């Protein structure tokens, strides 16, 4: 059964230094508040898994929280580069990070294998790509047809963190819209944190499939309204595309980045304080 706790407690209890952490959400429902809380708690040596690292991992990498990155597309969607990610890969600043790089299909297959309790997953992929030589992929032969396919190892994070629209008071999680790879990432992990827009008596969605993840598959639920900003939570918030564009300028320079992180994340007490600051800044 999931416990309903504060985000600070969930991150403090379930994210030890050195852990392999998956924070999923495919553009939609990215758990930014949880990432910020890891930065406030100065987590170290994390191996960060995520299909699309996005601004959230740019921030964690730039603040020196990451030792490794398992990913398939590391850009600022529609805007350009993730400058802190590039600085780490190209110049080792603030520290070098180890890359384990896949395609989207490969990452999705790895999570699905992890959720299935299998040691590896199979796909028709990577043929002719130089990724084969640089990552954990093996060629296997189908025992029935002889076709050559790709095998990728299961991904089993120590903890998976996602954001959803709702949980009920028992910790059943309700979620809708683009659902990405979240169910697979939670079921593949040893423990999980779900931040939610609201905790309600009854989930809004009805019908036989209204529970995205039943409470007994989740470790901790933390209510964090607006917890996906600048990503979005369909039905609650919209994507802050203007912020994603502004991030390009904020993150390009090391000092500008550090000053922004200090002002908006490190020196804010929690996510509500962060959102107040963002809101004042946008309207000021």
């Amino acid at each position, binding site marked *: 059964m999931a416990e309903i706790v504060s985000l600070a407690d969930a991150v403090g209890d379930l994210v030890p230094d050195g852990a392999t952490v998956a924070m999923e959400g495919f553009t939609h429902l990215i758990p930014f508040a949880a990432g910020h809380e890891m930065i406030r708690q100065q987590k170290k040596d994390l191996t960060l898994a995520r299909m699309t690292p996005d601004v959230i991992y740019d921030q964690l990498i730039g603040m020196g929280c990451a030792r490794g990155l398992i990913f398939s597309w590391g850009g600022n969607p529609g805007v350009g580069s993730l400058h802190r990610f590039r600085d780490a890969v*190209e110049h080792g600043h603030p520290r070098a990070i180890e890359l384990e790089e896949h395609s*989207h299909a490969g990452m999705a*297959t790895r999570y699905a294998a992890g959720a299935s309790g299998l040691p590896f997953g199979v*796909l*028709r992929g990577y043929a002719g*790509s130089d990724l084969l030589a640089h990552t954990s992929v093996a060629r296997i032969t189908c025992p029935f047809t002889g076709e*050559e396919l790709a095998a990728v190892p299961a991904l089993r994070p120590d903890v998976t963190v996602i954001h959803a629209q709702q949980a009920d008071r028992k910790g059943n999680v309700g979620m809708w819209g683009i659902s990405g790879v979240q169910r697979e990432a939670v079921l593949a992990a040893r423990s999980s944190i779900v931040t939610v827009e609201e905790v309600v008596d009854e989930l809004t969605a009805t019908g036989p499939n209204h529970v995205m993840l039943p409470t007994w598959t989740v470790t901790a639920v933390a209510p964090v309204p607006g917890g996906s900003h600048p990503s979005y939570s369909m039905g609650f*918030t919209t994507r802050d595309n203007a912020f994603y564009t502004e991030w390009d300028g904020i993150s390009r320079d090391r000092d500008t980045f550090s000053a922004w992180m200090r002002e908006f994340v490190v020196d804010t007490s929690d996510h509500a304080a962060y959102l107040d600051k963002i809101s004042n800044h946008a309207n000021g």
Partner: protein
Amino acid sequence: MAETGPDQATFAPDEMMTVTAARGLRNGQVCFVGIGLPSEAANLARLSHAPDVVLIYESGTIGTRPEILPLSIGDGELAEMADLVVSVPEVFSYWLQGGRIDVGFLSAAQIDRYGNLNSTVIGSYDHPDVRLPGAGGAPEIASSAGEVIVMLRQNSRSFVESVDFVTSVGFGRDGEGRIGNVGAGPSVVITDLGVLRPDAVSHELTLVAIHPGVSVDDAVTATGWDLLVSDPLDVTEPPTSAELATLRDLQARTREAHARREASAIDH
């Protein structure tokens, strides 16, 4: 760029590229769309000659009809306007790998004469000069879509003798490398200068058309290998005023929407 007649306004090279790429999609085809240039061209096709084209984005949004171009591959607009939304593992397994995609629509930072695409690094993998975003969905789109339309701007940095990294395979570094891939590979490469198609036998990209106002020399100079030029060489039909109006309207709506920070973005 060229004045092309009384009915058509002056147009930019990028507009010619997008219009040409849009024309490459046929009504009713199922298209797996990459973000950026391909997304713009695919939606222009849908808003002009191909209203029943089925657009699928890797966020799992299937049959989507966005009013504005998405900034990211998973903007809410794509989900709200979709026929159905599936998980990411599902979109890659049942829909792409399952063989339901007619056309994959891709871009890249570099391309070589055999249509191999690089979106991973400039320089060496371990010590890159420029670290690019990486593969995303492209390798399996390149592998499994029935055919692939590639669009990118043509210059000596993008059209190179040898790509620094094969992220997504075209015909392989030697032109014979589609072993293990189900789809037919790149059928056409559309640039801001012209149109290239792979030779039926050697698979080497051949310039088959240039855009109005572009010379063969321009295309040759912008290519990092000895470019094969087809004889006769076509000249692309310039954009119609309807195509230009639809494209510019879409771009204007999109710019306006992306610059606006809705109060709902920071609700809490």
